[in-house]
């Protein structure tokens, strides 16, 4: 897993609630047998019309893309357990998703792939969406060590929660499977006891 410590970036606002993993990556693009390349079809049906033409009013097509932080409405990542959703977001270039509420499986999938999820209060999220309408070029910072999400202009500063175990994994690029393999003796003992 790739390490994550800190980054600074503009935000990509997607002020829609309940963005499900079918929107993030539709099922018909899940036919690959490797993890790469899913970014091409991120938000496919919002980015393209039925004739594969770009929809110009969709945020990812509107601005020149130079953002690593996706800002999305509440209950982000609900629906299907497809990890392809996390792969697609990461592959497209995002490293952080900020929302007021995340679906459980998506959160696990994201963290297992070095994609940080930052949960902030609903009223703050709304304020940031409003602020971005005035000034979309404002920079935000995500610092995993201090667990802070803040704007460079100092207007917004939010503390976010992350479990110590996940934090250590992200900071060091540790992998859950390596950890589980390292305790195999304990697993075998459990099996014998059963």
């Amino acid at each position, binding site marked *: 897993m790739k390490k994550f410590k800190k980054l600074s970036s503009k935000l990509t606002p997607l*002020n*829609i*609630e*309940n963005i*499900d993993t*079918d*929107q993030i990556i*539709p*099922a*018909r693009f*899940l*036919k*690959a*047998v*490797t*993890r790469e390349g899913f970014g091409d079809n991120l938000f496919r*049906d919002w980015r393209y019309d*039925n004739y594969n033409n770009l929809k110009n009013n969709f945020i990812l097509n509107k601005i020149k893309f130079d953002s690593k932080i996706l800002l999305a*409405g*509440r*209950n982000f990542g*609900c*629906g*299907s*357990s*497809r*990890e*392809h959703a*996390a792969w697609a977001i990461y592959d497209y270039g995002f490293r952080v998703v900020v929302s007021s*509420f995340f*679906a*459980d*499986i998506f959160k*696990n*999938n994201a963290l*297992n*792939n070095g994609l940080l999820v930052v949960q902030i209060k609903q009223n703050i999220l709304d304020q940031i969406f409003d602020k971005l309408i005035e000034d979309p070029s404002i920079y935000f910072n995500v610092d995993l060590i201090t667990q802070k999400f803040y704007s460079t202009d100092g207007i917004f500063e939010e503390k976010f929660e992350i*479990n*110590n*175990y*996940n934090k250590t994994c992200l900071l060091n690029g540790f992998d*859950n*499977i390596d*950890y*589980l*393999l390292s*305790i*195999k003796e*304990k*697993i075998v003992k*459990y*099996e014998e006891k059963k």
Partner: protein
Amino acid sequence: MGKTLFEKVWDDHVVDSINNGPSILYIDKHLIHEVTSPQAFNGLNNRNIKVFRPKKTVATADHNVPTLNQHLPIKEELSRNQVDTLTKNCKEHNINLYGLGHKYQGIVHVIGPELGITQPGMTIVCGDSHTSTHGAFGSIAFGIGTSEVEMVLSTQCLLQYKPKTMLIEIDGDLKDGVYSKDIILYIISKISASGGTGYFVEYSGSAIRSLSMESRMTICNMSIEMGARGGMIAPDNKTFEYLKNKEFSPKGDDFLKTVKKWGNLKTDNNAKYDKVIKFNANQIEPMITYGTNPGMGIKINENIPSSAINNSEESFNKSLEYMGIHSGEKLINKKIDYVFIGSCTNSRIEDLRVAANTIKGKKIHNNVTAWVIPGSKSVEKIALEEGLNKVFEEAGFEFRQPGCSACLAMNEDKIPSSKYCVSTSNRNFEGRQGPGSRTFLASPVTAAISAINGYVSDIRNHL
């Protein structure tokens, strides 16, 4: 203090815990399919390790398989490659595969229970969010991502944070024309598509007890649609009776001994849940969804709400615009184009029986295309023996072969853009049944009677 059913099963499977971190949870049964497993096997190959406990994993091909001519090679190259990759991986790692053509092939959440792979008190996972289905047997069952599939393949364990517990109790008698699909759509409409997030649900109460095992599966199946990781129901005599003589159930004396053990799988009287929600069964009516998440459901005769419930106004309006409907309008009598009876929610033999019974001797409306997709080869076999395929075909339905089909439209079975489909599946997301498709989720009888009339119909007018 006593323990809830969830806590009993959870505690029994904790191998170890990380201080201030997740638990290491042992997994009894792991189900895999062609779409979410290939990258996990790649991970194992990259680490040069084999599957740790191959007998605890069972595989089938369901998500992208065609539902016609399954005896022929799969035409679509990418789908064929995914199914072939599953076959190759299972062979290399010594995993039991019920692939296309096998008598046990079918939707992963249909075959687990019908083969007795699913049993009370187990931990069961699969790279599919509807794994919650298996909770109907009193097991902890939930969907996982591909990295987690890799964890289970390599160590038979997962790192998991213990979720909070929620009790949903439904007492009272169900009205005529109300099925388990209506119960779960009603619950989700009340607590929203995210109301269960962070929780593991237990369903109880006399209305739940009165349901058959297959109906209970429909309820647990859609737990994820309110955000809950899973839902479970304490096993009882119906559970034990269902599992008797199943392929992988214990046999003879063993079965009796095991049933005795299973009998302890219930919440203690003095146990506490983090949240308790109660509903009255006689408040529930046939339900249908109007929007683009499963929480957007109404009683079939109700008006579409005039403003957002559980959604922001903006998301609510976006949803109605996508669906081509207006707030305040009714769905009843709305013209439809497609009917889909299938998916891990409603493709079992009881679903097919009630649907067939509804349409027997009638013809579907000229403007409607209707598909019935049995959940598994075993369901298909019973349906053929009972002549249900003939009932459907004589009415103008297409009776096809098992798979996930138009629930997620990964194969050729897609609802065309802007067309309306009354569907017995579990998700009404934008484009879920094909780009631009518009889904109304409902029970098998509502879907069946709507196919006959050509518009959204209330089964109670036809009883």
